[in-house]
């Protein structure tokens, strides 16, 4: 979707699937020059510490590749579980729904671009 990647998790994530997702996603970010990643986990109702850490990893990797990650649609039970596991995912931005996540990404990216333009007006063509 434009400069964003949308990942929808439809099945229960097991460990291998999470690893595959992580690899695919990093390659896609590089391949498509995406500036934002939206992970929709509204269909996910079971999480463990590994999945929680994986989400954190994906966010960190995307940031290294200059893409923002927003996790959307987390269920209450999943949120409680993650907090009880001690995984508050401080590096991840969250939103209630896909639309709000999009807004968040757009706002973040336009702010970024604006600052780049202001800082280096000569680099505009690059």
């Amino acid at each position, binding site marked *: 979707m434009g400069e964003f990647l949308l990942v929808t998790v439809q099945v229960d994530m097991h460990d291998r699937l999470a690893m595959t997702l992580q690899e695919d996603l990093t390659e896609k970010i590089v391949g498509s020059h995406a500036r934002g990643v939206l992970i929709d986990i509204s269909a996910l109702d079971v999480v463990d510490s590994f999945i929680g850490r994986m989400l954190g990893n994906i966010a960190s990797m995307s940031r290294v590749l200059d893409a923002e990650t927003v*996790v*959307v649609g*987390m*269920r*209450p039970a*999943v*949120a*409680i579980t*993650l*907090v*009880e596991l001690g995984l*508050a*995912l*401080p590096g991840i931005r*969250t*939103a*209630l*729904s896909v639309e*709000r*996540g999009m807004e968040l990404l757009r706002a973040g990216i336009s702010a970024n671009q604006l600052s780049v333009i202001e800082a280096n007006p000569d680099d505009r063509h690059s």
Partner: protein
Amino acid sequence: MEKSKTESDARSLASLLARNQAQVLERWRSSLLADLASRGPAITESDLNRQSGQFLAALRGALERDNGASIQGSAWDQTRGILTEISREQARRGATSSEVATFIFSLKEALFGLVQTEFADDPQRMAREVWNTSNILDRLGLLTTDIALKSREETILRQQKEMLELSTPVVKLWTGILALPLIGTLDSERTQVVMESLLDEIVRTEAGIAIIDITGVPTVDTLVAQHLLKTVAAARLMGAECIISGIRPQIASTIVHLGVDLGGVSTKATLADAFAMALLRSGLGVCRTEPRRTSSGQ
């Protein structure tokens, strides 16, 4: 030999009861009614009459089937069932456990009287029958006490649960702004309920901002602070932002002295401040207009 003897004794008690049931019931009722005067309005006379009739019939049935050495056998199922029902009913109406037990113990007088007149010529037999009867009634009495206490406990548990539900309302202040006024001490169990109802409400109303007001929380220690932070973290994971408001001066100093880090959470002194902040973040504002009287105000 010994066993067959007790069996025949019990049988004779059963037949004795069968022959004199009406008379026993009459005496039992009169002693129950004598107690009733001192017991207050919890139990009425008609209730007692019904309950005593029911129980005595069941007791007789059980005695006919079993020798009564133990009241746990299947022959006593019905009797125990009826007694359970009666004890529950009495306990629910506010009778104390000793009052419930008195219901059974007052039957002693009537039954002993019966045994005494029947075996007046045979003192040994009489002593045995009295012992036997008293044994059965004691066990039944203990059973009623147990049941009465248990039903009390059930009531307490139910009330606790109701209080838990009553004390965690999530209210909508504006479109997209929720408030959670907390009143009373926060323990782990309550935090769980609070967290769940807040998160469910966030999903339902799609609210982006939740204000947690702790004006009614008497003390904040490290545990309570941790619970609050957990709730905030869970709401953040869902994509909603939390503001903690209603922090009193003493609580502020306690938090600082305990070294609790509330750095990542926005805090406000009053609910009004927090609401203003929430409006600001949602891009809303309040402006003054001409005061308008509502028609009902006149």
